[in-house]
């Protein structure tokens, strides 16, 4: 599934990044690497932007990026 489908407060593990080039590097540098655990913490009130906790830091991304992050849900 993709990151936008993680329920709020839920966790998942990154499977792949369906992005290329600069965009992909940028995300990887922030820690969005296959195998990393992310937690969907906040949804923006107007929608479209989601904040994830990754490696202890909360980072917000727009859905044109988050819908390209493939994840596998965590059992917890």
């Amino acid at each position, binding site marked *: 599934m993709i990151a936008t489908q993680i329920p709020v407060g839920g966790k998942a593990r990154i499977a792949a990044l369906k992005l290329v080039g*600069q*965009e992909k*590097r*940028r*995300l*990887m*540098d*922030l*820690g969005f*690497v*296959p*195998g*990393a655990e992310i937690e969907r*913490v*906040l*949804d*923006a*009130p*107007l*929608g*479209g*932007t989601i*904040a994830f*906790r990754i*490696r*202890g*830091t*909360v*980072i*917000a*991304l*727009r859905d044109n*990026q988050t819908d390209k992050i493939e994840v596998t849900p965590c059992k917890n």
Partner: protein
Amino acid sequence: MAVDGILQAAAQYRQSLGGRVHEAIVERTFEEAERIAERAVVREGEARKFALDLALDRVLTSRVWGLPVMGLMLAAVLWITVTGANVPSAMLNDLLIGQGHPWLLSMFGSMGSPSWVTGFFVDGVYLATAWVISVMLPPMAIFFPLFTLLEDYGYLPRVSFNLDRAFRWAGAEGKQSLTMMMGFGCNAAGIVSTRIISSPRERLIAILTNNFSICNGRWPTLILIGTIFVAATAPPAFAGLVAAGSVLVIAVLGVLMTLLVSRVLSRTILKGEPSHFSLELPPYRPPQIGKVIVRSVFDRTLIVLWRAVVMAAPAGALIWITSNIIVGGDSLAGHFVGWLDPFGVALGLNGVILAAYVFAIPANEIIVPTILMLTLNVARSTMAQQGVMLELDQTATRDVLVNHGGWTLLTGVNLMLFSLLHNPCSTTLMTIYKETKSWKWTLWSALMPIGIGFAVCGLVALVWRLVT
């Protein structure tokens, strides 16, 4: 060339390694970071730390509460700034103008200086400077520490987060919300803060629209007009609320204009690829309040004083001169006002207001006293010496404007709109030039808002007159 050889070899290796070199390296780096961190962290308090922050964030960014809380914060900051500044402003006014002015007059007189010299320096230069200091210093000394506290605490990225969708619609970078907020204190500071936007195109959009954030220099004008004109139409019990409300409306209008104009710009003359957005929401960190306040007040005080001397002083001199040089039966200022009047009235304003805005290009703060002075001048009232900027209480001010200046509610409303929609002050313009190094864009940033201002005021005047 050997370099090409190296690059070719690298490309070949890249191919044979499956093109995943970067990913592999980054993954390994994070793996190592994880491993080492795990060994070094002895006791994890993570859960507790996250829980508190998260609880707060859930409220501050919630569907229901997020935006209202933001509005409330803005209102709170506005209210604290305004009420907090009242007393110091009055005190400074009393000191510098109430006492300082007559003292200087007598001092100049005792030195035997000719009246025009006294007039020029004391009534022109000194008064303008004194007015800027007393009007601008207290609000700035309050607003910026408040803003800095919010900033240091970590609230501002949450505002960006909340507004991101809107800024996306506007075709703008998320960080523009932060520069916009900075502009509410001082537009020049807002311009400098656009450095956090890395894409030049998006940075330019932020610069061009920053003036729609109402800076501290314009609050007093808005509050005064809001109080004596708009609130006057409401029952006295609600006057305070209505006045504050009208100012808040203008502020929100400014935010809407920022978004709208950004959208238009990003679709027309500043078209381009939106940059990749990512925003860190840092943990909340209680700031060292005392330190912040002290440092902020000092920094701001110095800036305001500098600005008063460099910007306001010459403006004051100019006002005095044009009000006192009589040509063809009227002062230069009087001629200027008369010439602008037809255009002014068409906009639902008048010649005095337009002339005042020309004089106040260096500093928005002197708008009100300049308007008063010009009004009395044009009406040939003996209430004021020629070219002397005044301090009148609210009722007296209203009387002057309505009876001597022919102001109506329309004038008041349009002045508030025009206060939002006019050219940036000269400090801001200079800053824009320094940051963009382009005459073209500096000119744009000056003419675009005022063009919009003319259009909006004209439209409002038209509709108003048709309706009433």
